[in-house]
């Protein structure tokens, strides 16, 4: 009889502990899976962005805090990019339009991070990014700061040609990155990008991981 009471007590204690743990410690859920869409890579557990000191296209300082409190969609590229960047930015623009129309934008920030600080000054970026959408944000700055960010989020790139020359090429990773409201990398959406693929993946990620 005594043993039975002890068992009940132990079970009750264990139950209380697990409830308390569930309440106070929000664990990382199982990674969201995409069986019907190709090229969505979920980062689980998410990777926190580093402390950064960059500039937006108006010359305003951009730090880690600017990534907090809202979801972001980011593409890394360069303004002298004739094919890949305009293609993905045009998709991002159409995704933004779709989300706005559906009332699903929820303060999403759309970012274009330059991998070419040699040519992409805030002025150059401003003309480029506002051409796609006046609400998009261009980000540039010192190469060391750009590298700090790109390395953390897994965006690899290299230069082909002489950077002192006007015509060098930047080969770069071309995924659209999804960053959560705690400034953590949640997913890579790999190219090729379509409006359907990017908006569906983005909505599901936000619904699953929450604001």
């Amino acid at each position, binding site marked *: 009889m005594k043993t039975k009471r002890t068992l009940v007590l132990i079970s009750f204690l264990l139950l209380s502990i697990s409830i308390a743990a569930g309440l106070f410690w929000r664990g990382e859920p199982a990674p969201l899976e995409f069986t019907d869409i190709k090229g969505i890579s979920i980062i689980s557990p998410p990777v926190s962005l580093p402390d950064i000191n960059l500039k937006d296209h108006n010359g305003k300082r951009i730090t880690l805090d600017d990534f907090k409190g809202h979801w972001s969609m980011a593409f890394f590229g360069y*303004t002298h990019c004739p*094919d*890949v960047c305009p293609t993905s930015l045009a998709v991002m623009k159409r995704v933004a339009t779709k989300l706005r129309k559906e009332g699903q934008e929820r303060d999403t920030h759309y970012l274009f991070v330059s991998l070419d600080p040699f040519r992409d000054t805030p002025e150059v970026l401003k*003309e480029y990014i506002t*051409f796609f959408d006046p609400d998009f944000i261009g980000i540039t700055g010192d190469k060391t700061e750009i590298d700090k960010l790109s390395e953390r989020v897994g965006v690899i*790139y290299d230069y082909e040609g002489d950077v002192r020359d006007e015509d060098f090429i930047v*080969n770069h*990773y071309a995924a659209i990155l999804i960053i959560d409201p705690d400034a953590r990398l949640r997913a890579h959406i790999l190219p090729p990008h379509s409006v359907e693929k990017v908006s569906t993946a983005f909505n599901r990620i936000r619904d699953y991981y929450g604001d």
Partner: protein
Amino acid sequence: MPVRQQIAIIATTLLLSFNSYAATEVVVENAWVRTAPPSARVLAAYMDITNHSGQPRYLISASSPQFKSVELHQTSMNDGMMHMTPVDAVTLEKGKTIHIEPGGYHFMLMGPKQRIHRGDKITLKLGFKNGEAVTVEADVKDSRDEPGQTASHQHHH
């Protein structure tokens, strides 16, 4: 009318009639140039090229009077990393269409001589290994799907 001018007219007429025959061999359709910010130094042109001739054709050069230089490049993806590689020649198999489209081949238009705006026409001259040249007029627009502007014009020289 001076004889010399008459000869010139006859020659031109002959050349034109010969060329309109040749025009059925390599046909370019849906040529477009993507709009870019007014100060952009590099733009991309896209099109579909069909080889109706009985032999393969090799596209080896491109130029435009509106740009300093034009190169044919290919975008290729390797583990999500995009590489842009200059291409020396594109083989057009007989009876086949090559799609020069975003994310694949593109004509890289470098150094515009004046600002390019939406709705402008860009003249492109494509050179083939057999000496044939095709002149293409490409519309400057946002994307291939943009309604209203579908036809592109071409003629041979």
